[in-house]
């Protein structure tokens, strides 16, 4: 591993009685983009503000190329600070200066560049960030998305060695969000700056990052490459990577897979000793990939939403249901038998057949035939998880079907 550009060693920081960083050890490497993720208020921005000197650690050290920041001479500190740019979460644009003056400010105040040269550089950035026509307006006269781009333009206009981005995409529409991430990745390759980015855009931010740092509960829960992140089996890390799936599950009214897996394991262990059975139902949507491809993600999500709602109603608190893989839902019902499971399956079939997703009239352009299948397994002695799944697949039957009208599909 090369020497880190910036390294935090056992950094502690508190605001009054509230501790924000607890022995933080993080490294940022030259020429890489590091994404810092964590819940709101977890101390991500605090970490950034330490790098640029807006905050000082209560204890611990911050090293720049191996030398502690606290031992920097005034000249060294000025040189280091001038090689950085900081993009604030709320943009921090100067509201009494025009957009042009905002972007030009670091050049005008820090350099002795002739006015024509400043104008050339600023106009280049204005064009690059699609801000033509607003250069004479004031920040309050332009949209939030534009303000974000002005802040970005101001951050890159000095061509810094390192840029610290504090949530650069918050408040942008999805198209601009991707454009900003794209732009960061593009200029990072072109200019070669080191980027540190606090972001909530999971998983998008992983695509442009070389390293990921997760802050959870005042501590660094993970640091490494996005690949290492994907293979990490820590619970906290898992929740961050699959955050969007958790939201989908919440919308469908399902539990998280972690919860259901725990219940299933304990039930498998329990049925070995107890007499009352437990039952597992595996629902599976046939041709889901085709629906996603030809109709869309929303249609696919609607199918799961309908299944989730029906399951929530019929199993209530007596069972647990979660997405299993991309096409299935696994239901675990402790202390229940096959009859209960059958009635749940019937309910689901009736409920979903009534919904618009099972109505051919809803598909105006292309119609895909698909079916919902269900397999019931009663848990018995010495069954493994794999046994349960293979048994469920063996027992599965079609419970609801979408048939396209003739001449369509």
């Amino acid at each position, binding site marked *: 591993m090369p020497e880190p550009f910036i390294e935090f060693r056992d950094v502690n920081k508190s605001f009054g009685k509230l501790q924000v960083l607890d022995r933080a050890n993080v490294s940022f490497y030259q020429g890489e983009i590091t994404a810092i993720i964590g819940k709101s208020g977890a101390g991500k921005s605090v970490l950034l503000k330490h790098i640029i000197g807006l905050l000082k650690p209560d204890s611990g050290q911050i090293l720049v190329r191996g030398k502690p920041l606290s031992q920097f001479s005034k000249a060294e500190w*000025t040189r280091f*600070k001038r090689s950085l740019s*900081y993009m604030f979460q709320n943009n921090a*644009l100067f509201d009494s200066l025009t957009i042009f003056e905002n972007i030009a400010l670091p050049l005008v105040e820090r350099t002795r560049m002739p006015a024509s040269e400043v104008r050339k550089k600023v106009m280049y950035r204005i064009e690059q960030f699609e801000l033509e026509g607003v250069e004479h307006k004031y920040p309050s006269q332009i949209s939030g998305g534009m303000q974000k781009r002005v802040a970005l333009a101001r951050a890159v206009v000095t061509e810094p060695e390192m840029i610290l981005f504090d949530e650069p995409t918050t408040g942008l529409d999805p198209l601009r969000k991707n454009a900003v991430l794209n732009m960061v990745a593009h200029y990072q390759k072109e200019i070669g700056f080191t980027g540190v980015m606090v972001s909530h855009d999971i998983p998008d931010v992983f695509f442009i990052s070389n390293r990921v740092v997760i802050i959870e509960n005042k501590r660094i829960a993970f640091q490494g490459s996005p690949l290492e992140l994907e293979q990490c089996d820590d619970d906290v890390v898992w929740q961050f990577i699959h955050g969007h799936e958790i939201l989908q599950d919440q919308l469908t009214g399902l539990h998280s897979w972690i919860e259901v897996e725990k219940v299933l394991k304990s039930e498998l262990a329990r049925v070995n000793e107890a007499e009352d059975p437990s039952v597992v139902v595996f629902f599976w949507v046939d041709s889901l990939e085709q629906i996603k491809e030809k109709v869309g993600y929303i249609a696919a999500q609607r199918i799961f939403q309908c299944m989730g709602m029906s399951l929530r109603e019929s199993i209530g608190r007596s069972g647990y249901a979660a997405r299993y893989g991309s096409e299935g839902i696994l239901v675990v019902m402790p202390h229940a038998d096959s009859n209960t499971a059958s009635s749940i399956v019937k309910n689901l079939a009736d409920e979903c057949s009534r919904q618009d997703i099972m109505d051919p009239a809803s598909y105006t352009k292309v119609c895909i035939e698909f079916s919902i299948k269900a397999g019931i397994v009663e848990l018995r002695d010495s069954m493994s998880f794999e046994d349960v799944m293979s048994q469920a697949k063996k027992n599965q039957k079609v419970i609801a079907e979408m048939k396209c009208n003739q001449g369509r599909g």
Partner: protein
Amino acid sequence: MPDNTANQGSHGVLAGINWLGRTTLNIIGELGAIGIFFFYGLAMIFSLPFQFRKIVQQIYFIGVKSFLIISLIGLFTGMVLGLQGYYTLVKFGSEGMLGAAVALSLIRELGPVLTALMVIGRAGSSIAAELGIMRISEQIDALDTMDINPMRYLVSPRMAASVIVFPMLTALFDVIGILGGYLTGVVLLGINSGIYFNRIYDSVVMRDISEGFLKSLCFALIVSTICCYQGYFTHMRREGFGARGVSLATTSAVVISCVLVLVIDYILTSFLL
């Protein structure tokens, strides 16, 4: 129980001493901070390259834009001085002294003080509010991250402009006030205009004018330092944050500046007389 009462009494005395000590330390700390802020802001005026453009902008904001209000206040102050002065002097049959009375009270006292109070209300409050908003919206932090010294960029031009503008506005106030006195004394109440101006010419000496200017220079430094300080450190206030913090900073800036102007005026007058 006598023992208990004694204990409570000593506890109360200790708490009192504790409070006194804490408050004194806070005041001394605050005074020290203002002192450092003042000297640092002043020193930054002379740091290179000079910030001519920004100083001129502030002269326009603090000075030119106060022109109308200072003229109006000066005019009515002079007029009321003329009116009151006339009715007092006429009792002693010396209404001819009206010009001297109006001019001396304006040049030595009312000119510098009322100008300072007016500028505090118009420009001082807006300096505190502007810097306060810049602080809470992280604009001052943004300057810091760009390695632009916020004291040099924001505070020094305002201090320099105040030092230039206060004496000029005071001079304007004095002249228009004298003309106001002329309006009531000469035009309305019929004093001879030659006598009015001749008395001014006879009684006002250069020392009166320079003392008035010295006062206005001191007020310029006090007002600009206090207003900038209150705005600049809005975020350090314990009583309020955000918009409330800014409103408190603006109020403190105006109140503290006004009180200090009057206190310093008394001290300076007693030394200069």
